């Protein structure tokens, strides 16, 4: 019998083969094996195996400076965990030893050229970049000189100030969103005060917090522990989203973003009505407080007036209470007027300099006494289009910062140079990048940020050899100085020597104490700190009477006219994702697979907002602001209040791919329009 094989037969046979294959282990086993095969490509770094040793150091990835015990094999750290007596490590700290091998790691200085939203990198000699910077500094033809310091308070920070001291108008700009930076607004009340303004949270029994992420480490581990413990600390949290701090607070006040200043003045109004002594301390703003009653403030903030009365009553009932403006991990500081309104509460309560109030702490000793230093200047105090030479020091890490807020300060043809271990974050915006050692590859100082009352300094000692092609930041300062013909003060040439000078100064001063060690000499102090001991000072209690000036009263009066925006975008990220331009692939995998934290590029809205804007979970939406547009995936959550878009800017599952493609912009860049922060931005959203 003759049988013709038709095309239909072939397709039917193929269908049978396909269905049959699915009923065998072959496709599933192949999938698994191919996945494992991709882990064994020859260019993938292989962790060493062998005898395991243990080394102590300090995590320098954020200002908390947690003590770390590193498990090492063959002298290379393969696992990080908290030292026995230290705080538990966050996920960034636990995976920090991967960063030195991150695909975005730079091992040579590069010139950056933007092309179609991506950056193209070309290797250049470091000497050429140094010469270019020095020439631009000498001529000053392009504008003033500034250093954007992401980790102020280090010895290298001092070196930058010493370098810029000889240049007119030059200044160091501290990172605008670091913890406690909002307290710098206290300088408006007492410009001549020595030391740094800090909240004495450890001794406070009641805190009115405006968005301070106290449960996520802001304000130190002790405050967090007291909050978790649930006894002895009353906390009222004013925040638009139900954050982990809001969940642990005694009361959560979900005020509309941008209305925090009105809430603060509403509380002040209730305080002035309840206590004549308080009213006498705020005479300059009494007419304003009579107009901006708790009821009016509640209307602006979209909350019940009882919440404002309750907050005022808490502050009155607790002699050791304070109000504090907190920085959001992605959103940074409040605008200066809101900070002024919040800090005014402490002034009218007489809580300045008092235990459990707003106090000062002594600054860390400089490496060299009495050196000439350039001033520190806030980013929002810097005139637009004024900076001709900008050096971005991201050598010890960096935090979320929308680049447009920096770019608006640059003069036309400005030269921007970054010091960073990675081709990511700010360094992709700078025209040139000098590669520096990554975490664990070099000695780092870790000064505690201004969110705790005790000044503290730790030293992170290196556990890995620095890569060839990366330069010590302090030696770069020296090279620029030599090329620009500037004489620097002190006998030092490296970060290690700056640290030695500083520890000697600390030892000589006799101020403060060493936690977890003893030191009879400067060398012993440095050695103890290299082993993980921390030097700290106690806060200074010296109650000061302050008053609200007429100029401040005029600024506060603008809060009365706070307009309710139809829709605002509020940037968010998790605390551990906020401290580094790059994250370990394992970290991003955890975010991607665990669902514990939202990845970047997600817009979270309230169900009511989703209905109104016709948005569905999972779909793409376009968010438009005055700065631009961004496409994000929609999620719907009751924890976000109506008319608010919570835009996550944290790690993304594509972080590896993005860093390889070097995408310049990120979702944070659409935030901020007024030039005074990017915490809350009017926006529109629609289906993509």
């Amino acid at each position, binding site marked *: 019998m003759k049988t013709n094989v038709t095309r239909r037969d072939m397709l039917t046979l193929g269908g*049978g*083969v396909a269905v*049959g294959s699915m009923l*065998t282990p072959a496709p599933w086993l192949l999938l698994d094996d191919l996945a494992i095969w991709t*882990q064994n490509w020859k260019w993938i770094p292989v962790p060493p195996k062998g005898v395991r040793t243990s080394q102590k150091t300090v995590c320098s990835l954020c200002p908390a400076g947690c003590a770390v015990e590193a498990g090492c094999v063959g002298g290379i750290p393969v696992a990080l965990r908290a030292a026995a007596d230290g705080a538990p490590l966050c996920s960034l700290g636990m995976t920090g030893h991967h960063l030195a091998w991150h695909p975005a790691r730079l091992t040579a200085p590069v010139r950056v050229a933007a092309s179609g939203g991506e950056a193209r990198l070309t290797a250049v000699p470091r000497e050429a970049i140094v010469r270019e910077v020095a020439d631009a500094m000498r001529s000053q033809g392009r504008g003033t000189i500034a250093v954007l310091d992401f980790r102020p308070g280090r010895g290298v920070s001092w070196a930058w100030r010493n370098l810029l001291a000889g240049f007119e108008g030059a200044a160091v700009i501290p990172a605008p969103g670091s913890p406690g930076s909002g307290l710098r607004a206290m300088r408006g009340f007492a410009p001549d005060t020595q030391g740094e303004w800090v909240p004495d949270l450890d001794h406070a029994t009641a805190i009115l917090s405006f968005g301070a992420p106290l449960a996520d480490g802001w304000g130190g581990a002790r405050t967090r522990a007291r909050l978790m413990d649930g006894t002895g600390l009353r906390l009222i949290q004013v925040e638009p989203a139900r954050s982990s701090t809001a969940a642990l607070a005694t009361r959560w006040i979900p005020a509309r973003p941008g209305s925090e200043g009105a809430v603060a003045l509403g509380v002040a109004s209730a305080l002035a009505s309840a206590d004549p002594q308080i009213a006498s301390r705020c005479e300059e703003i009494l007419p304003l407080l009579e107009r901006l009653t708790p009821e009016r403030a509640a209307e602006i903030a979209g909350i019940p007036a009882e919440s404002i009365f309750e907050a005022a009553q808490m502050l009155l009932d607790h002699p050791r209470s304070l109000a504090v403006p907190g920085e959001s991990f992605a959103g940074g500081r409040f605008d200066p007027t809101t900070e002024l309104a919040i800090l005014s509460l402490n002034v009218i309560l007489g809580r300045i300099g008092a235990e459990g109030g707003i106090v000062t702490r002594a600054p860390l000793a400089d490496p060299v006494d009495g050196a000439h230093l350039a001033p520190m200047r806030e980013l929002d105090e810097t005139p637009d289009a004024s900076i001709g030479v900008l050096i971005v020091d991201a050598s010890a890490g960096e935090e979320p910062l929308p680049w447009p807020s920096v770019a608006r300060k640059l003069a036309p043809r400005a030269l921007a140079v970054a010091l960073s271990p990675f081709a990511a974050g700010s360094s992709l915006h700078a025209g040139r990048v000098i590669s520096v050692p990554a975490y664990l590859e070099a000695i780092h100082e870790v000064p505690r940020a201004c969110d705790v009352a005790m000044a503290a300094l730790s030293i992170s000692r290196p556990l890995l050899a620095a890569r060839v092609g990366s330069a010590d930041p302090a030696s770069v300062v020296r090279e620029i100085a030599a090329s620009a013909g500037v004489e620097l003060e002190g006998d030092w040439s490296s970060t290690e020597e700056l640290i030695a000078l500083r520890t000697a100064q600390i030892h000589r001063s006799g101020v403060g104490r060493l936690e977890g060690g003893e030191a009879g000499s400067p060398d012993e102090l440095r050695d103890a700190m290299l082993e993980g001991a921390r030097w700290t000072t106690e806060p200074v209690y010296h109650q000061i009477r302050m008053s609200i000036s007429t100029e401040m009263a005029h600024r506060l009066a603008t809060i009365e006219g706070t307009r309710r925006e139809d829709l605002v975008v509020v940037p968010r990220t998790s605390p551990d994702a906020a401290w580094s331009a790059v994250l370990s692939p394992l970290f991003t995998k*955890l975010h991607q697979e665990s669902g514990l934290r939202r990845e970047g590029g997600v817009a979270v809205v309230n169900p009511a907002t989703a209905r109104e804007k016709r948005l569905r979970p999972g779909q793409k939406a376009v968010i438009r602001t005055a700065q631009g547009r961004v496409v994000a995936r929609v999620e719907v959550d009751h924890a976000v209040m109506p008319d608010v878009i919570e835009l996550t800017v944290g790690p993304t599952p594509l972080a590896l791919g993005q860093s390889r493609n070097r995408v310049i912009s990120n979702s944070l860049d659409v935030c901020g329009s007024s030039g005074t922060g990017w915490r809350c931005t009017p926006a529109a959203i629609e289906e993509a």
Partner: protein
Amino acid sequence: MIPRNYLVFALGMAAALAGGWLAFPRALYRTVEQPLQFSHAVHVGESVGMACQDCHSLAEDGRFSGLPKIDLCAPCHTDPMGDSENEKKLVESYVIPNVEIPWLVYARQPENAYFAHAPHLVLAELTCEQCHGPHGETDTLRPLEQNRITGYSRDIWGRSLTRVRNAEGEGMKMSDCSSCHRDRRVRESCLTCHK
């Protein structure tokens, strides 16, 4: 009569099933003989009386020392003690020239996984056999079935290709670790094994 289409479809399905269940496993794994035959039964038996940890001991830091070095064999096998061909090969090819035996490891894990024997043996009090099977009773070393794609042993996946009815201790994939931890209510996290 069965329609022709059905027959052709069934033919294709049967071919795929035969290929997937019979030919594919043979093609996926290649068989590699151990460099030397070794009788665990003789060494662990009454005549010699050794225990597992005499050769496979824990290092001081809790890490497993793994396979014994030739130094451990040499004191007893400087000269052949019997007339076995394998012992003769041991003495001549490895002990006298002091060369390590390139054993093929059935339980070798990927480089990104760290496994510490100490907590499992000391804290959990697991026996060697629970994961490695009755290896100590064998008279010969079976050949290693090496996956042609990944390079790892078939013991990692388990004998059963479906992994539906794996016996306890069979299979050493991440899911096997997880399920054992779950069964014993032992905490686990990604970073415990993946550093």
